[in-house]
Each structure stands twice: as structure tokens, then as C-alpha cells.
């Protein structure tokens, strides 16, 4: 394998508390050393990272790549290319594929297909219940053996708290992480926007923040009862942040992420009836956004995910409530994180940790850091490079983003996956 020297970059590796100009040495697809040249190292390839930032590759805890089952929206090939162009080296795949990831064969098929066609690593998340129907437990252990990194019921409800309790007990028995997007379907009541000024003005079916916080509070209680490790995905409200803060202070083994666009957009930013803004959980109030930013800064929220959901054009073509929710968001992940740093909501080190070391910790992976011996998954980016979101720059098959046409700062120049430039 190629021996690679990445030289003169600003190395930021939050896990190892490194932030300095220096070099990274890669041999056999692994990090050999940071800063100090290993004895007898001879580079086959030198990457000049002058004026660029070198950090671990990004780990994305929530993506939908539409394969298997919805190839007209996106494929592993299209989306891993978009990920590679965006510094993302590992993507967790939500289990609501077609078919659902509730059987060993599906998980294996996904791993095979991903390896054959994809640029970046794809880690399937197993369905918590069979067919995600919320009634019977999936074969979690077999799914874990097949390479699933966690269990989740994605956006589907679990029938009742008894089923959820048992699923959590079973997951805990096999030390499986539950990824839980808190949403009470009854309170959400088929809503499509945040319950507030916007829903009132435009007469749109609305989702109160309590739909999220009540489900979160229930799951926190069950986490204590069952001892199951829980990661809350795509938190969107201020009161969720408060509840999580209390739970962590109390000592529960829980973590949480936020979708990157939730840290930037609110109901007030939505162009009325523009389906590009149709996302679940919905864009909430300014107060919620500020609390999410604070929660990220003070560690209540551990990591940032893209919550990538590419769509075909038809899925977004209709009256707002009838369109499909979701944003294609792999490629805006880094620039939107850098914007948070620019706006002094978080430090650059915190931003990088939220995309690398923190998600690796949540999944208990030996990655997300430039520790010698770890797979050489790296991202090199130019924080000053300006680029516009348009059909020339965009790689994902889904062009459903509210940021279309926006000019961002920060572009990935190299992504390395186990020591290979992709």
C-alpha cells in the first residue's frame, strides 16, 4: 500500500488534543505517526496541506442513501461520491430501507453492495423491531454479528412502552446501542411544520415540540429502568436540550445528536410552501435553535449528523404537506459546521470533535481520531475556499436542499479512506 505523507497542514485531532501545524504519516492504510517522522519512512505520495486543515474523516450517524429499494432517489455510488467529496468517511445507514434492515441477509447485502460500489464506509443500523412495525423484536444479535452498529426504529413508532421496554432490555443484554428519534406520533398528528407562528399563519398541520420532548422523557425513564445505552437522534427543541442536560447530570448513559441544518434554520427562515424546507423534525423557533447551539457548545449535545435524505424531484413537487420530508445534506455538513465556528457558536475543535471523535465514541469505534494504529480515515479541507451550491458543484443525486445557490466557505480537498485517497 501507498505510504503517504501529509505535510504542513494544521492538524486538528480533538481526541488526542492536538492542534498544531505538522505532518501526518500513513503506512499500510493506518496512521503511523503524527508530527514525528517514523524511522525509515519513505513517502510514495506527498500531499501538501499548507494552509489547510487536516482532521479525522467525518462520521455521520444518520443517513439515508436510498439503497436498497429507492434507486431513483439515490444510490450508494452517487451518495458515497458526495460523501467522499465532503470529507465523510463513515456513514450510518438508517434501517428504513426497502426491504428493512431487520434480517441478517439484508445487512450483509448492504455491506457487500456498499463495498463494491461505494467510496466510504457504510455501517448499517439494524431495525429494532421486525419490519419496523413496532410490535415484535428483530433478531438483534444476528444483525449485530452481520455488522450492524446499533438498533433503531428509525421514524416509525414502537407500538407501546412495554414493547419499547422489552426491546431496550434485549438490546442492553447484547450491549447494543439504541438510536432513538423521539417523536410521539399521536402528538405529531401528521404535522409537517413546527407548531408556532408559521403553522398558524399558513394553516399547515403542525407538530408541537412536546411531541419530541414527551417521547424523549419516556425513553429516558426506560433507559434508567433497562440500563440500555441510548443515543437520541436529531434533537430539535430547547426543552429536549434541557431534559438531556438533566439526564446527563444525573448520570444516565445517554448521548444525542442534532442535524446540521437545525443549527442554522428556523421557521422564520422558511419560504412559505417551499418544499425544500419540509424536514422532520421541523425547523422550530429561534429560541430552539439558540438552545441547540448552546447544547452543542456545552456538551449536552454530543455530535452533529447530516440527516441526509436525498429525494427525486417528484418527491418534492407538490403542495407542501404532500411532499416528502428531508434534506440532501452531506455536502453542506462541513461548510455549515464552519459557519457555526464563524458565528462563534462553537470552537473549531468542538465542531470537528462533533463530526469525528464524538460519533466514534458513541458507536464505540476505533476511529474518529488520528491515533497511531487507527485506520487512516482523514479529511483535508481548505477553510477559506468559497464555493457555490449549484449543479456543477453538487454530487448527490438529491438536489433537495434549502441552501441551493448559497455560497459557502470551506471545501474538502482530499478525503482518505483507510489510507486511500478517494
Amino acid at each position: 500500500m501507498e505510504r503517504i505523507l501529509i505535510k504542513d497542514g494544521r492538524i486538528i485531532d480533538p481526541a488526542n488534543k492536538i492542534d498544531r501545524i505538522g505532518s501526518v504519516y500513513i503506512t499500510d492504510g493506518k496512521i503511523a505517526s503524527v508530527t514525528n517522522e517514523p524511522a525509515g519512512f519513505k513517502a510514495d505520495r506527498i500531499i501538501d496541506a499548507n494552509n489547510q486543515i487536516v482532521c479525522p474523516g467525518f462520521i455521520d450517524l444518520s443517513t439515508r442513501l436510498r439503497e436498497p429499494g429507492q434507486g431513483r432517489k439515490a444510490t450508494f455510488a452517487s451518495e458515497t461520491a458526495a460523501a467522499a467529496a465532503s470529507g465523510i468517511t463513515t456513514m450510518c445507514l438508517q434501517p428504513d430501507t426497502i426491504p428493512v434492515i431487520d434480517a441478517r441477509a439484508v445487512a450483509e447485502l448492504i455491506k457487500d453492495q456498499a463495498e463494491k460500489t461505494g467510496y466510504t464506509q457504510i455501517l448499517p443500523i439494524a431495525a429494532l423491531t421486525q419490519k419496523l412495525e413496532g410490535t415484535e423484536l428483530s433478531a438483534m444479535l444476528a444483525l449485530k454479528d452481520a455488522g450492524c452498529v446499533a438498533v433503531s426504529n428509525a421514524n416509525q413508532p414502537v407500538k407501546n412502552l412495554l414493547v419499547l421496554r422489552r426491546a431496550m432490555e434485549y438490546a442492553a443484554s447484547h450491549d447494543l446501542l439504541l438510536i432513538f428519534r423521539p417523536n410521539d406520533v399521536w402528538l405529531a398528528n401528521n404535522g409537517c411544520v413546527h407548531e408556532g407562528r408559521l403553522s398558524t399563519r399558513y394553516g399547515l398541520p403542525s407538530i408541537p415540540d412536546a411531541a419530541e420532548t414527551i417521547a424523549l422523557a419516556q425513553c429516558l425513564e426506560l433507559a434508567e429502568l433497562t440500563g440500555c445505552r441510548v443515543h437520541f437522534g436529531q434533537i430539535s427543541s430547547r426543552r429536549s436540550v434541557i431534559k438531556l442536560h438533566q439526564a446527563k447530570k444525573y448520570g444516565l448513559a445517554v448521548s444525542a445528536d442534532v442535524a446540521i441544518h437545525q443549527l442554522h434554520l428556523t421557521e422564520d427562515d422558511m419560504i412559505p410552501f417551499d418544499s425544500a424546507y419540509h424536514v422532520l423534525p421541523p425547523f422550530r423557533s429561534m429560541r430552539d435553535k439558540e438552545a441547540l447551539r448552546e447544547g452543542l457548545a456545552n456538551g449536552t449535545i454530543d455530535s452533529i449528523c447530516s440527516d441526509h435524505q436525498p429525494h427525486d424531484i417528484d418527491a418534492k413537487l407538490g403542495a407542501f404537506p404532500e411532499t416528502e420530508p428531508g434534506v440532501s445534506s452531506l455536502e453542506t455538513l462541513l461548510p455549515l459546521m464552519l459557519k457555526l465556528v464563524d458565528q462563534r457558536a462553537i470552537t473549531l475543535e468542538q465542531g470537528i470533535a462533533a463530526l469525528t471523535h464524538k460519533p466514534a465514541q458513541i458507536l464505540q469505534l476505533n476511529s474518529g481520531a488520528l491515533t497511531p494504529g487507527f485506520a487512516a480515515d482523514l479529511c483535508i479541507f481548505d477553510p477559506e475556499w468559497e464555493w457555490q451550491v449549484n449543479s456543477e458543484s453538487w454530487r448527490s443525486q438529491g438536489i433537495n436542499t434549502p441552501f441551493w445557490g448559497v455560497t459557502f466557505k470551506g471545501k474538502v480537498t482530499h478525503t482518505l479512506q483507510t489510507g486511500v485517497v478517494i
Partner: protein
Amino acid sequence: MMSNNLQLNSEGKLKHFLTIEGLDKALLIEILDLAESFVGTEDQRIKKIPLLRGKSIVNLFFENSTRTRTTFELAARRLSADVLSMSIATSSTSKGESLLDTIRNLEAMYVDMFVVRHGISGAAHFIAQHAAPNVSVINAGDGQHAHPTQAMLDMFTIRQMKGDFANLRVAIVGDILHSRVARSDIQALNTLGVAEVRVIAPKTLLPAQVESMGVTVSHNLADGLKDIDVIIMLRLQKERMSAALLPSESEYFKCFGLTEKRLKIAKPDAIVMHPGPINRGVEIDSNVADGPQSVILKQVSNGIAIRMAIMAMAMQKQEGL
């Protein structure tokens, strides 16, 4: 904002009529004045004005309506347009694509204007966004969002009865949450500068942060009607009971039904309005609905003049008249 620009052309003239939001007072007054000039055409022996002769208008009703569809049809005919009404049954599975296909097909037949009623909020905006540049879209009610022609006929009726908007206190009573009429009325009344818009309903029938629309709130009809000049009653749908929003029709009537006794709490010359169809004995007592203070049927007649005015103005943008 797009929703505002979408309905105006580059000269600020009406191109589509989708919502009251974003339209200024001068434009609303212009609509009322033009409608006034059409009042009286009904009484003439020949009821037609050749303003839209040779124009094709299609009424696309994805939701049932007798009154609105009929008045739009009559208004179009009185302007000498060719009009076709289509009722399109929608299933819950029908998607925007098929909506778009319907529009495209009709456009291919050189239609000049669509009058659209649809059960989903934002449907009229969607059609206007995707319609050919020379086609106008009039919103005849979309989901719970807007019913701007109803709001304008309400304003027309209020002006007819009260003369001026400046010192009026207007109460809107009932299911504000699900009402596109309420939303459009609130916006129109505030744009025209009334003294107060008061919404009166139980919490279950009020949308979140309703005050942000520029209204005061009361949960009690008896107190809420004090000093009120105009009472707009809203229709209560039967589904509201099964959705656990209300216990029963009789309890609703007890708290929010407009009776002769309650009407006395409002100003003595208060007028009573209702967008129809009315549920006698549910939101309004028959004695009130048919009583001297009721202008409910006047609203219906005014609907024709208002819709003539709006269709004529929206069509003007093409003629450069």
C-alpha cells in the same frame, strides 16, 4: 417573500389571487371599489359585461362546494367569459404530480384562468408556481390556509354596512384553527386597519400563538362580544367531535352558539356574518341567522361582484389595460 411576489406582476398589479397576505390596503380598496361598480349588474335585464369575452376560465374544485363554485361561475359568465367547472374527486393517495398533470393538460387547451379549491394548504400556491406565465390562478380556498375571495366579500359587506373600517371591533367566533376564512379575514381586517380583531373560541379550536396574527383572544362568548360591531360566526364541522376537540354540539352551542340574548351583549347595531353553510342550532340560532342583524345572504350576493372584480383585475395583467 415569494408568497407575496408570486401574486403580483412586476408593476405590482394582481396576477394571481392566492392570499391576502402581502397585499396592501390600496389594492384591497381597489378590489372593493371595482366590485362596487359591478353591483347592480344583477338588476339589469342583460346581466353581462364584455370584459372577459373570449377568455376561458376553468373552475377546478378538488373539494366540494356549492356556493363558492356557483358564484365564481356566475361571476365569470357575467364578465362574458367561457367557463367550465370541474369537480375532481381526490383520493388521499393522489400526489402533487397528478395535480400538476391535471394543470398541464388543461393549460394545453389554452385556458386563461384557473379557479382552484383544494383540501391541502398551499395547493393554490403550488399551481400558481407551476402554471404557464400567461395563466392566472385564483384561490377559492386551500386547506386551512386561505380563502381570500371570501375575505374580500366579507370586507365588502362590512364596508357596505358600516362605511369605514377604522373604528370597528370585529369578533370571529368558532373553529379558528381549521378555518381558512378566519385566517384570510384576520389578515384583511388588519390590513384595512380595524380597531380590533377578536377571536373567540375554546383553546382546542385556536391555533398556537394566534396572537401573532394580530388578534386578541377570548374563550368566552358572553364576555367576548362586548363592544363588538361585527360578528363573524364560523361553521363547526362534525369531525371536530370525533377528534376530541369538543365534547358535543350541544355543549358547543351552550358556550359559543350565537343566540338573540348573547347578540344583545354586542353593540346594538352589530351585524352578524357567516361564510356558510350554517349549522342552525350548532353555532348559530335560527332567530339570529334569519334576524334583522344578519347579513348572511347579502354576503352571498356580494360574492358575485367581488369575484367579478378579482377575476377582471387578475386578467388585466395580460391585457395591459
